[in-house]
């Protein structure tokens, strides 16, 4: 990878004067999230999935990186793995998308109409050793959408997220998701930067978080749509500064939590107007990838996936 090339002497002076020569987020060492604080709590039927901020509106006893589920008549629990820097490096270095995901042309993206019935689709990483050169290097792979997990496994693919594949399904983008547990905040700031700078910097700013271009476009599509649909709600400073989640008790009486009534008004608006658009464009969502975020969600849409992909033949 190349470093940025700011060659202008004036720019150099300004950088020096403002002390702005730090590294971007892509180069910061990854610190795995702290799971210790959840150890004393046990997940229950109404426990939410996430990594709530300390002293936030939802306590660790009600939101943790663990979900309960029923399998073969038994109640089981699943905890999202804690990934290390080596895991992230393996996602970036060991695998290479055989055919880059195409960029979105034009400013408008029309999502396909919602499908009937239960969405059982998964996106699989299908290794392509036949495309690998003799000199080794990263393993080429295809991203293939399968109707069920069983189909993916039968085809020799490793499931990387629930739902059909999209612009953010690649393992390189997955590494960005894992390295940034809270992507909503930096992407929102990129949206504001673009609005103030007026020079298309929003898309470049999102890409600079580490995404490839099609995935940055998917986030940009989401940001633009949310700015358009939710400007009034999200423009209110009191809403914008509010915690992501509303207060929540683990044993709700008469309250059926869903992903919209758990979050603040701005996020609820984003969820209502942009989620379908984003999922169609990006494919990969945090919940669909089994990755906890600081915003607690129900376990309903969380996929239980471990993101360690052994390279065939190694």
């Amino acid at each position, binding site marked *: 990878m190349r470093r*940025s090339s700011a060659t*202008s002497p004036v*720019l150099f002076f300004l950088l020096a004067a403002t002390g702005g020569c730090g590294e971007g987020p892509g180069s910061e060492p990854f610190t795995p999230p702290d799971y210790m604080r959840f150890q004393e709590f046990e997940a229950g039927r109404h426990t939410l999935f996430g990594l709530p901020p300390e002293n936030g509106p939802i306590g660790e006893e009600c939101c943790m990186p663990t979900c309960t589920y029923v399998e073969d008549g038994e109640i089981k629990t699943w905890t999202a793995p804690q990934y290390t820097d080596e895991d992230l490096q393996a996602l970036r270095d060991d695998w290479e998308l055989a055919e880059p995901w195409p960029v979105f042309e034009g400013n408008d993206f029309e999502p396909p109409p919602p499908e009937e019935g239960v969405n059982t689709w998964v996106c699989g990483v299908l290794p392509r050793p036949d495309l690998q050169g003799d000199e080794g290097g990263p393993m080429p792979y295809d991203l293939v959408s399968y109707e069920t997990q069983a189909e993916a496994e039968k085809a020799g693919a490793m499931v990387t997220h629930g739902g059909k594949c999209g612009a953010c399904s690649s393992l390189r983008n997955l590494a960005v998701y894992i390295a940034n547990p809270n992507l909503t905040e930096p992407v929102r*700031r990129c949206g504001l930067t673009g609005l103030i700078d*007026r020079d298309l910097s929003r898309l470049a*700013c999102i890409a600079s978080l580490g995404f490839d271009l099609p995935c940055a476009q998917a986030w940009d599509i989401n940001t633009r749509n949310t700015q358009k649909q939710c400007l009034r709600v999200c423009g209110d400073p009191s809403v914008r500064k509010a915690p992501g989640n509303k207060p929540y008790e683990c044993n709700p009486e008469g309250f059926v939590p869903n992903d919209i009534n758990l979050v603040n008004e701005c996020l609820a608006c984003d969820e209502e107007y942009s989620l379908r658009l984003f999922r169609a464009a990006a494919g990969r969502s945090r919940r669909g990838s089994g990755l906890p975020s600081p915003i607690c969600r129900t376990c309903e849409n969380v996929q239980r996936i471990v993101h360690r992909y052994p390279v065939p033949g190694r």
Partner: protein
Amino acid sequence: MIRERDRLGACLAVGMLAIGWSGSALAEPQTREEESATCDEKPPEPECKRECTYRCTCRRGIYATDYKNLILIIAGSTFAGRIELEYERALHDRVSIFGAFYAVAFDSLGNDTLVGFGGLAGARVNLVGRAPEGIWFAWQVGGFRRNARGNQDVQLRGMQTGGMFGWTGVWSRFALSLGAGFTYSYGRVKVLEQSVNDSEWNPWLRLGLGVAF
């Protein structure tokens, strides 16, 4: 000459305060007559720094500065880490041209990932007052370039054009410029090996502070 101009500026300011001027001077042309009467220290014609072609007098007053040049810091965009300097020169009582250079060196919003620079040039046509003061309409074109600061290879290059209505005032040597308009940006974003054309319309607000000379 300069000292005299400052003295006259101060005199004019006192005059404006005395008559309760609050931005409605345009609708009250007699105000300027009153100022001229109060500040009856107008320099003789030959001392005028600038040849008057529009009003045919050299009296100082609202929207009739002697100065032909402005240097402004566009403070509004500094909020987003953009340091922008603009130079404007009046060519005529009604027309001025300007050029600006900006660098994006930091980001107060906390993104801190993109650096870059850009330049723009344009012309202002005064609707009220004598350039570079008064109420104006401006049109500009420019280009910009941005790069990611981190390891990710991101490049952005593009062009921009836009129009704006605004107002510039000069007191003594201090200049304030405000405006609002729209810009259209068109460019190419390149990330790793992929690139795409992008375009967008954006609102454009202006707050400039500087000096006249």
